[in-house]
């Protein structure tokens, strides 16, 4: 190549020869964000399915017959409260308080469990009255979309418990702070997805 022809005192550098420092975890936040974006695509596909199939009742029950908006409002409140309590956990972490962080994570977990309990009750009620996923395309896509979100919340709660144990064992080390921020993104992201669910599935469904 032409590298030998460059004989100036300061050789021209077309690319970086020095290796940059890669401190552990410096790209975790961005990587996790990109994971969330791919998760967003999963939900987008499920929303598209629901949008296409959501009106095919197969002479079965329609959203108007099935959904109790008061229950959904309560569920939405659960998730919204869990968002702000997670925020408090992050603030406690920034102040360097391990116990406070754990406490608010626990409160967040309880709200998450409350959300899951209400959702499972709703599913149980629907299946009991015969509105199973097999009943119509509307119910298939409904259970897939809302169930996938519920599964994400379940794993979020498991992660919350694991994180509380890690915080108890190692305290607020850099790795744990990173984990708190990653779960923060995951948890708030699930709340963002829920905005789409309660608007498009429940509110628009009842309007139709």
């Amino acid at each position, binding site marked *: 190549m032409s590298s030998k022809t460059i004989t100036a005192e300061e050789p021209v550098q077309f690319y970086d020869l*020095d*290796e*940059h*420092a890669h*401190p552990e*975890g*410096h790209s*975790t*936040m*961005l990587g996790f*964000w*990109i994971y969330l*974006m791919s998760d*967003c*695509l999963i939900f*987008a*596909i499920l*929303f*598209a399915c629901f*949008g*296409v199939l959501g009106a095919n009742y197969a002479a079965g029950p329609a959203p108007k017959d099935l959904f109790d*908006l008061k229950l*959904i*409002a309560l569920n*939405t*409140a659960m998730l*919204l409260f869990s*968002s*702000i309590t997670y*925020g*408090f956990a*992050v*603030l406690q972490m*920034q102040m360097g308080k391990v116990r406070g962080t754990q406490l608010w994570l626990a409160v967040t977990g309880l709200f998450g469990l409350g959300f899951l309990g209400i959702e499972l009750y709703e599913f149980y009620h629907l299946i009991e009255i015969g509105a199973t996923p097999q009943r119509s395309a509307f119910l298939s896509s409904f259970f897939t979309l809302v169930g996938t979100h519920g599964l994400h919340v379940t794993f979020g709660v498991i992660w919350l418990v694991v994180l509380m144990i890690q915080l108890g064992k190692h305290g607020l080390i*850099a790795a744990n*702070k*990173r984990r708190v*921020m990653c779960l923060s*993104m995951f948890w*708030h*992201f699930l*709340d*963002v997805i829920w*905005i*789409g669910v*309660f*608007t*498009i599935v429940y*509110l*628009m469904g*009842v*309007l139709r």
Partner: protein
Amino acid sequence: MSADPHAAHGQVHGEIEMPHASMRDYLVGFVLSVILTAIPFWLVMERPLSTGATAAIIMILAAAQIVVHMVYFLHMTPKAEDGWSLTSLVFTVIVVVIMLAGSLWVMHHLNTNMMPQVHDTSQLP
């Protein structure tokens, strides 16, 4: 490989950059979210407006609430992660919009144009 450049960079990048959250952000986000959730539920439960207007308003409020969550809870700024967070978000939104709009459009046309019409069935041989 000498440890020198690592040490030099290590001091600059030693502390991993994390979005700084504040109580004010969370409270503002929470209050806005409560308002943006309560209005659509009230509109659908009480039905003070026509169906079309209600649908349009709740969709707009949902979009607004997603932005509120992005800004106040997920600390989304154009500068986060040197702009890569926002870049990947914009890319995802573009893909999602194309896919959602495309799916709904195509399937709606299939439904309306390719379903056997009721008056056609009587003319079948």
